[in-house]
Each structure stands twice: as structure tokens, then as C-alpha cells.
């Protein structure tokens, strides 16, 4: 698309956003958004095909090219529009587009783009965390079905999900990476039990999932039989790109930026300088890290578009992003002091309580989606190509 046409398209998108996005929602992706307005906005996104702008229209997407999709993303970010980003859109969709059969794409992609079906991800198991490929959940072929037995853990949103994309062992005798398949099946069936896990931050979004004779159609196996590991890794890459690419991380979801919070909690002197020089240093470092991540992600995008030798920065982004969001909450805790130690009660402001929970929640960021240590292993092996 020519630059002029692209500018025209940008105007079109701007007008559309102005007409459809109420000002109450221009505050980022937050949990306390007015439900009715949010649902209207999500419907508008769906009908304009902007949930999955780059997918073909026949799969329910917006049929846009990469530059147009980039414009959409920029314009939505510029007004801090809440995102409708689901596991289906961010992870399963791209995976199906790459590895799925035509029938699978037609069956699943439009539902995802219309946000009609909620997906969860069946990867980790109690005995397969960082060493994911040692997973034991079995799927045995029986006629035109697979019978699934085993256990998953850390499954986000499993209690609400309609379907699961799941890594299962289909050949127990093969070397561990070569006996895994990628299988889709419904969660609402006998043989699937979900038991939410209470986490240190008081949330219960993660679950343990038990499979005891759960059934999957054989035609819902994605990619080659026993070829699931390649797909699994590819999907993790999408996951890492999403995190590293999400600017500001958890900060974007809060009323106050970390800068507002520290200024308020620590106080400024007459010259407008933070009272505590050490916290000021930490804050500057945090801001520089945010800047570095944002610019590096943008640079990676430019490298890709210009087809210059891009580097695989998905792991790098995930690793630094995780440290960054954790550090942000550490700074908040340091600034709040005892006011950051509240669990509930009127003695603490809502924003203080929210920060404290965020401090706890973000501990997970350097663990899930591949721990920091796993990301560093990946960088050493795949990016820097140091033989093991």
C-alpha cells in the first residue's frame, strides 16, 4: 500500500475509533472498566474485523496487510483503547494459520475472531515445568478419537474455558521431543475436571486440570502426529512476543503510573526533585529500561519489515520485560513502605492495595512462559549459537 493510501487508511481508522470508543474506556486494559461499554466496544472491534486484523476475511479477520495492521495497532495504542486479546487470538490463531488444515482453520478461526469461544492452554504439568518436553499426559487413539489421560497445571482461565489446546504424548517410546502431539478438545465434557489454584496474590485464575478419559476428535490433532513439539515452541514464541511487545506491561493497566505513585509517596522537594535520591535512581533506571524495551521492540519490527538481518529477540524481550515489571513493583513497595503491606481494610488506599497485589502477581512473570533461566538458555543456544 502506498504511503498516501496508508495515511488515508489511518484517517479512516481514527474516525472509526472516534465514533466507537467512548472516553471512559480510553484508559488502557483494566479490570474495573464499565462492563456494558466494554462489551459494546468489543462488539464494534469484532464487526470491524479488528480483533485479528491480519487474518484473511474468510477466517473472520480484517484482511489487512502488515502495514495497515501496524497502523491499527498504533492508533488503538495512542488512545489507550482496551485490548481484546485472548489466548485464541494471540497464540492459537497464528499457530493454526501456520500448521492447521483448511478444515481446522475454517472451524476455529472465525469463532476466535468473533470471541465466541474461550480457549485455554494445556502445557505445563506438575512434573514438566521448565523441562516441558518431559510431559506425561497421554492421548491414545481409539477409532476416530483420542482418549486423553493425565494432568495439567498453571492453566490460565481453565475454569471458564470452552476449549483447550493441549500438548499430549502420543508415542511414549519415542525420544521425549518426538512423541508429542498438539491436540484440541472441548473442556465441557465428562473426563475433564478443573480445580482452581489459590496463588500468593489471592487470585485463582490458574487451575489444575485433570483428564480421565477425556475425548478429542482425531481430526482436531494439529500438524503431524508426534510433530507437536515444533508447534509448541512456535506458539511459545508468539507468547513471548506478546509480552515483550506489550508496552508498559502491568503499568498500563493502573490508574497511576509508577512515577505518579513514587512522587506522591516519597514527596518532592522545593526544586521538584524526589526527596529520596536512591529511589530516584531506581526510578530513572526503571524508565530507561522501559525505553530500551520499547525502542528495541520497535527496532525489531523495523528490521523485519526492511528484511534486514533481524535477530530473534522474543526470548530477550520476555526476559527483560519480566525483570522490568517486577522491578517496577519493587520500587512501588519501597516507596509505599508500611502502606504497601496491606492485604485489605480502610487503612490502605485502593491504589495501594492494587500495587501490593501487583507486586505479588508479577513474581510469576519471570516464571511462566519459560523462566528467566530458560530464556537465557534459549538466547545462549539459539541467538548466540554457543554449542552446549
Amino acid at each position, binding site marked *: 500500500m502506498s504511503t498516501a493510501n496508508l495515511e488515508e487508511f489511518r484517517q479512516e481508522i481514527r474516525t472509526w475509533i472516534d465514533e466507537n470508543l467512548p472516553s471512559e474506556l480510553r484508559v488502557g486494559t483494566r479490570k474495573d472498566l464499565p462492563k456494558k461499554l466494554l462489551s459494546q466496544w468489543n462488539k464494534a472491534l469484532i464487526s470491524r474485523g479488528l480483533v485479528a486484523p491480519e487474518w484473511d476475511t474468510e477466517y473472520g479477520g480484517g484482511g489487512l496487510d502488515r502495514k495497515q495492521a501496524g497502523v491499527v495497532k498504533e492508533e488503538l495504542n495512542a488512545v489507550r483503547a482496551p485490548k481484546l486479546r485472548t489466548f485464541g487470538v494471540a497464540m492459537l490463531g497464528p499457530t493454526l494459520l501456520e500448521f492447521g488444515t483448511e478444515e481446522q482453520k475454517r472451524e476455529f478461526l472465525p469463532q476466535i475472531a468473533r470471541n465466541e469461544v474461550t480457549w485455554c492452554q494445556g502445557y505445563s504439568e506438575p512434573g514438566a515445568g521448565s523441562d516441558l518436553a518431559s510431559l506425561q499426559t497421554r492421548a491414545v487413539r481409539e477409532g476416530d478419537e483420542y482418549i486423553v489421560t493425565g494432568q495439567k497445571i498453571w492453566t490460565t482461565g481453565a475454569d471458564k474455558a470452552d476449549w483447550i489446546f493441549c500438548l499430549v504424548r502420543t508415542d511414549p517410546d519415542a525420544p521425549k521431543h518426538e512423541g508429542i502431539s498438539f491436540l484440541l478438545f472441548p473442556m465441557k465434557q465428562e473426563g475433564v475436571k478443573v480445580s482452581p489454584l489459590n496463588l500468593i496474590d489471592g487470585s485463582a485464575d490458574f487451575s489444575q486440570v485433570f483428564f480421565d478419559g477425556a475425548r478429542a476428535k482425531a481430526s482436531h490433532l494439529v500438524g503431524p502426529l508426534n510433530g507437536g513439539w515444533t508447534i509448541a515452541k512456535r506458539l511459545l514464541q508468539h507468547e513471548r512476543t506478546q509480552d515483550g511487545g506489550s508496552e508498559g506491561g502491568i503499568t498500563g493497566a493502573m490508574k497511576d503510573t509508577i*512515577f505518579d505513585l513514587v512522587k506522591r509517596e516519597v514527596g518532592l522537594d522545593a526544586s521538584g526533585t*524526589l526527596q529520596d535520591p536512591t529511589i530516584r535512581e531506581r526510578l*530513572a533506571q526503571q524508565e530507561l529500561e522501559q525505553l530500551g524495551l520499547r525502542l528495541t521492540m520497535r527496532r525489531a519490527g*523495523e528490521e523485519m519489515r526492511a528484511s534486514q538481518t533481524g535477530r530473534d529477540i522474543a526470548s530477550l524481550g520476555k526476559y*527483560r520485560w519480566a525483570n522490568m515489571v517486577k522491578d517496577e513493583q519493587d520500587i512501588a513497595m519501597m516507596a509505599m513502605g508500611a502502606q504497601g503491606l496491606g492485604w485489605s481494610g480502610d487503612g490502605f488506599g485502593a491504589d495501594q492495595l492494587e500495587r501490593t497485589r501487583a507486586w505479588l502477581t508479577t513474581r510469576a512473570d519471570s516464571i511462566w512462559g519459560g523462566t528467566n533461566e530458560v530464556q537465557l538458555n534459549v538466547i545462549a543456544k539459539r541467538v548466540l549459537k554457543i554449542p*552446549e
Partner: protein
Amino acid sequence: MGLILTEDQLILRDMAKSFFDEKSPVERMRALRDSRDAVGFSRDLWKEMGELGWIGILFPESVGGADMGYGELGVVLGECGRVLAPEPFMSTVLLGGNAILLGGNEPLQKELLPDVCSGNRILSLAFQERGRFAPYAIETKAKRDGDHYTITGRKSFVLDGHVADQIVVAARTAGSSGEREGLSLFVVEADAPGLTIHRDDLVDGRNGAHLVLENVAVDGARVLGTVDAGADVLDAVFNRATVGLCAEMVGSFEEAFERTLEYLKTREQFGVKIGTFQALRHRIANLFAEMEFTRSIVRDAQTAIDEGRNDIAEATSAAKARCSEVAPLIAGEAVQMHGGIGMTDEEEIGLFFKRLKAAELSLGDAIFHRNRFAHLRGY
């Protein structure tokens, strides 16, 4: 301008890379140091860079320059950094040249800059009076006397001062040390009566000098910028010189990183390559991440200047804060991972280590620039 090199900049980079690989391997810098060369760099090579148009990248065509920007200069400086070339970009272009370009009137620019661009004139900037970088901590005094000024004081860390033809001297015409107001900049001839220049050898093999000025007379027409408001020029010069220095630093620490990475892949202990040890793999992977972030931030600072953005000071301090934090990290790990051989003068990694320390502390270290960044960001 984006965050990646343009087609033209890629061509320039390839040219510069083959130029320095062929004419200026790291041994050349070592030989200049070991022979205590009278100049400290190669005047011939400098003139060649002048002919190639690299010295004049920043300067307008009217004085023989190429009228390009920090994106292009950064490419050349990065390649200088890779081979530790000691040619006087910092003293003559980034500090002295920029002071004339940003503060000099037209006759002064016409008089001095053409020879700068061709490599026939060496300049420097004398501002520093004590160790830790503090841009307005200047006590050297300039007193008005009719149509000229007389300057008295001492200066240190005047890069390539011993071979400079003119030295821009920052002196106080009003106020007291530490104040931004009351500074003025003067173009002083190296052979001016009352000026003595003492050459100093620096830890990175480069040349500093300390100056003693005793009633050095300078014509009032050789003031840069406005009297008492010299800091306006000085700040702009420091921002630009700092961004240039960052580009050189990126070249140097990328080279140090790559050499260390190669060493991990070849050096054997306990019967295996040391790169198989996870303790080292994780550390070098983290260095890689630091390096990538820093490269992006430095490029953004170049763009800020080239596009005349209003956040040049912020972008500059972001870049130098990162460079000055990452440089000692990478250089320190490079020596550590090389082990005993890294401590020898014979192994080149030590030369990178020393150059990066000098660059880290020059024009403000990480603490200075984080502070300045925080101040500019309103906290």
C-alpha cells in the same frame, strides 16, 4: 529516520568497516601508544578520512562539509570504536568543531572549519578543571580589557591539546564556580603568549593535556555565542559530543562482546569448551540483552538530534546513562571471561577495557546522566 540503518548508512558502514579493517587494526593503536608517538594518532589517516568526507559529515557544505547528521557520523564512529582508532573525532569534530559550528559567527566558521573538514586543522575544547564531570564547575577567569579579554586559570583533560591548532576555552566572565550563568567561550590560539600546554598520557593510550593560562589575550571577536551565556553553546556541544561518544562506545563494546563470545566457543578447560558452562552462558546472554537495548537507545538519541526533536537533552542522557552502565559491565565481564590472559597487555581485550572506562567517565558517568534524566523527566 527509524531505528535501523538506512540503505545509504549501510553502504557507509561497509565502507568504513573495510577502511578500518585494512588501515587501522587494533595493533596500530598499540604501536602509537608503545612508541609514544609525538602526535598520538596518524595525521595521514586523518586526512584520508577528510578526503572521504567523514570528518565533515556534520558541517555545512559551505565550509567543505557533507551536511549530514549523527546517524551517519555514528556509523563511522562505531567503526572507529571497533578498532579503537584514536583519530581526533572527539577533540576536533565533536567538541571543538561543534563549538565553532554552534557558537561561532560566520567569519570564524569560514576561517576555521574548511581546514577542519579536510583534516588539516586540529581543535579541542578546554572545559574541565577537576576530575568528576561537572559542566559548570569552572573557575578559570576571563577579564574584559578594551576590545579583548585576558584569561587566567588551569584546565585539564584537554583531548589532543598538545597538537591542537586552536583550543576553545570555557572561562568565567561572571558568577562563581558551579553556576550556569556567567560562562563564556573563547577561541584561543595554541601558540598564544601566556598559554602553556602539557601533554598527558591517558590510561586508554590517548592524549589529554593540561593547560596553564596566564593572562592569555583573546580578541573579543573570537567569543563563541554570547558573553556570560556560553553555557547555551556548551550544553548543546555536550549533548552532541555525548551522543557521538555513545556511538563509539557501542562499537567498542560490541567488539569486546563478540571477541568474548568467540573465546567462550573456543577456549577449553576440564576437557570442554568453557561456553558449555551455564554460569557463563547466562551471563553472556544477559550482556547481549543489555547491548541490544543500549544500541536502540543510542540510535534514538542520534535521531533526536538529526530531527531537531525537543527532547535532545533527555535522549542524550538516556543514551549515556545506558552506555556508561553497560560499558563497564561488558568490558569487565570480557576480561573476567578471558581469565588470566585477559590481564595481559598482549591480549587486546584489555585495550577495550581501558578505552571503555575512559569513555564511561567522559562527559558524565551513569550516575550523572541518570540524575540529569530524572531531573528532565520531572522527578
